[in-house]
């Protein structure tokens, strides 16, 4: 399986969390990882790539995990902002960014890197 890393953080402050099998995330859908610092949405796209964003739209805080996934993008369910799953950046002309987290897939299992400090 391919490895996709979509954010960078110093290696020593990162902890990799086992999320679960890729199949547990719906194709063109997402699941939530609940953390003490808020939810993280883990998305699976048409090409079975997996991405993780903080589950809050930069616009009005809508839960991105509930949006429609298309291409490598997700549309927020509240006001239809479209965000790039690779970077969390809003697609122009909207401006904003949801924090993205590194993800990797090993033997069909999704791993998510959480920073041990610094994030909200």
């Amino acid at each position: 399986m391919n490895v996709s890393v979509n954010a960078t953080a110093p290696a020593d402050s990162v902890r990799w969390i086992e999320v679960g099998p890729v199949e547990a995330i719906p194709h063109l859908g997402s699941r939530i990882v609940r953390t003490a610092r808020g939810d993280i949405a883990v998305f699976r796209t048409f090409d079975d790539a997996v991405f993780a964003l903080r589950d809050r739209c930069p616009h009005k805080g809508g839960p991105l995990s509930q949006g429609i996934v298309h291409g490598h993008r997700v549309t927020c369910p509240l006001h239809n902002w479209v965000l790039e799953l690779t970077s969390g950046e809003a697609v122009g002309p909207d401006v904003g960014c949801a924090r993205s987290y590194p993800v990797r897939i090993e033997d069909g299992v999704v791993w998510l890197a959480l920073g041990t400090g610094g994030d909200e």
Partner: protein
Amino acid sequence: MNKPRLVLVGNGMAGMRTLEELLKLEPDMYDITVFGAEPYGNYNRILLSPVLAGEKTVDEIMLNDRNWYTERGITLHAGSPVTEIDRGGRRVVAGDGTEAAYDRLILATGSKPFVIPVPGHDQHGVLGFRDIHDVRAMLAGAGQGRRAVVIGGGLLGLEAANGLLKQGMDVTVVHLLDTLMEKQLDGAASGLLQRSLEARGLRFLTNARTEAILGDGRVTGVRFADGRQLDADLVVMAVGIRPNSELAEAAGLHCERGVLVDDTLQTFDPRIYAVGECVQHRGALYGLVAPLFEQARVCANHLAQLGIAKYGGSLTSTKLKVTGIDLFSAGDFVGDDDSEEMVFQDAARGVYRKLTVKDNRIQGAVMYGDTLDGPWYFQLMREATDISDIREQLLFGQAHVGDAGHGDQACRVAAMADSAEVCGCNGVCKGEIVHAITDRKLFTVEDVRAHTKASSSCGSCTGLVEALLANTLGGDYSQTPAKKPLCPCTEHSHDEVREAVRARGLKSLEAIFRTLEWRTPDGCHVCRPALNYYLVSSWPGEYRDDNQSRFINERVHANIQRDGTYSVVPRIWGGVTTPTELRAIAEVAEKYAVPTVKFTGGQRIDLLGVKKEDLPKVWGDLSRAGFVSGHAYGKALRTVKTCVGSEWCRFGTQDSTGLGIKLEQLTWGSWTPHKFKMGVSGCPRNCAEATIKDLGVVCVDSGYELHVGGNGGVKVRVTEFLCKVATEAEALEYAAAFLQLYREEARYLERTAPWLERVGLSHVKGRVVEDDVGRQDLYRRFLESQRPAQVDPWKARAAGEDAHEYTPIREVAL
């Protein structure tokens, strides 16, 4: 790797739009070189009139400055007109000797003003009105008290005359005929226009054939065939434009009036494309911006090797860019023996409108004084809408056709203050929109929507935004009649997609994407829900609903709220409940600490603020108490509102509650293009407000009146009377047949009101009332589609279906 080389000849609006559209599709496909005759970047030629009038500066009308080209790695040769195309050697040569080789070539050489070859036309002080150079020369020659003669009383001539008048000149417009703007206006509107321009200080000389320009190297006057003579310090020739096809002709490309192109904008040489005013397509020439942009989009599609777009020609509308004069013209406003005219004239208000109508379709429109309804008439014309049902109100405008939302004086765009709110959903006012249009160079409603959010929510202000675009961009803003693609993933319209789904037996999203050549692998948030609906409604029981193509509310069968919690509305048949049911709801509300319990407008109870993970448990409890989903979250059958009817009410004529319950039991669970609400009133007092529902029944002593196409909401619209039936059984059959017709014909997200306005009540009557066999077929198809649809989604989910939707995949203490 060497990229193929693309050369653009003509640095104007059509050519540059083609490049912009191409870069959107394929940013890195070509190595691009642009040649322009003028020594600037690309500017907005349609705004030259406001520059001449001193309302804008040259800098303000620039669209792409030199940096734009540099940033994209495009080579720009500005001020170096191409003089030769060497088709054999596949290169172009400019006047200054610059050469560029091409693999693909776009010709966008535009047009040039027609100069009447009368004696003296080449003297100093005789100008055209075409480019920045002309405008600068006019401004240099203008001056207080100096005399200008503008030859040509068409759109361009009048705009030039108005600009020179603003510069303090003494201006006379000379016209060959006695009707100004005869290509756009009839005699009456032209008369109104002339009087209004005269009141501003312009003078007119009509029926005047120019014979000679007088002067001795510098213009001094104009002489006419009948011997009249005018003194002049400046003469502007604005009698028309001609496609600039000399370069193409010299290269041996087939030309008639312009460079001939096919529906893909290809010339007779397959390596060479042509767009814009230099082009002749299916015998027509175009000079307005909207058709040119449409051509640009199609041409770019082929240059990007997508090969799926076609240009089918354009209908155009015109507005005059003279500040303070509202004038609109579209289509064939003269008519012929088979067409009829509808005229409205109010001299005191200075309002005139004329429509030409043929076979109940609008062929053309001329409006003067109040043009807010112009885009509406143009839309009716483009879509060839049958107007027989709205004939009586047609001339008074859209506000008089069952639409109580917008359309009073406050909405007349020209009169609106900058601070007036246009988009009530997103709080966007007129000033913001106008600034966005000018500062960010926006041309379309979609552009305005993306940048300002105006008209991006409920859409009711779309007409206003269009009117603002027309007013701000000036005359040449117009929409093309081209069908509207469903979304950017495709060229196909809603109707085409649905037709293909049925006719070609497409039974999955993948089949649609593949067969109809979607541009994206998996669609987008706009097309997927629409396609899913078309599949659900076309193949009941056969197509498996795609959860991931449903908006969140329909995916999880509850309404998402602004804080990410959900609301739950159980179905309460006909609005009639029992103490036991109420107790069950109360217990659920307490057990799950539901923060707000509210009665809805549809006679049911809304539990607001339920946490997502509690939803299956809440549904389980409600399900055990006998409730099913109320579908308050879906594009689906919502409620049937009733009054108490003959059972209790002393005025009631029939059992309206009983009928309401039967209607709801017949129709619940049905997915529809947009939400669908019903109401049943027991007598004409109409306490259930049935006449603002998608389908309303008003009981009378002798039977049941059926009313359709109403809604509250954004634009309150009262229903139209469909028919009256004698029995309850008939009422149910007709209602279901109407609902099925709507399900089969309306576009996704089109409510019954706009659908009805689009297809006409006569059409619906023909299918549901007059055609007994057809109605029974509709009814049968409805019942068939209900069989797989009437499964309570709540019960299934309470029992564990889609459990992943309601639980986190992982919880961590971090």
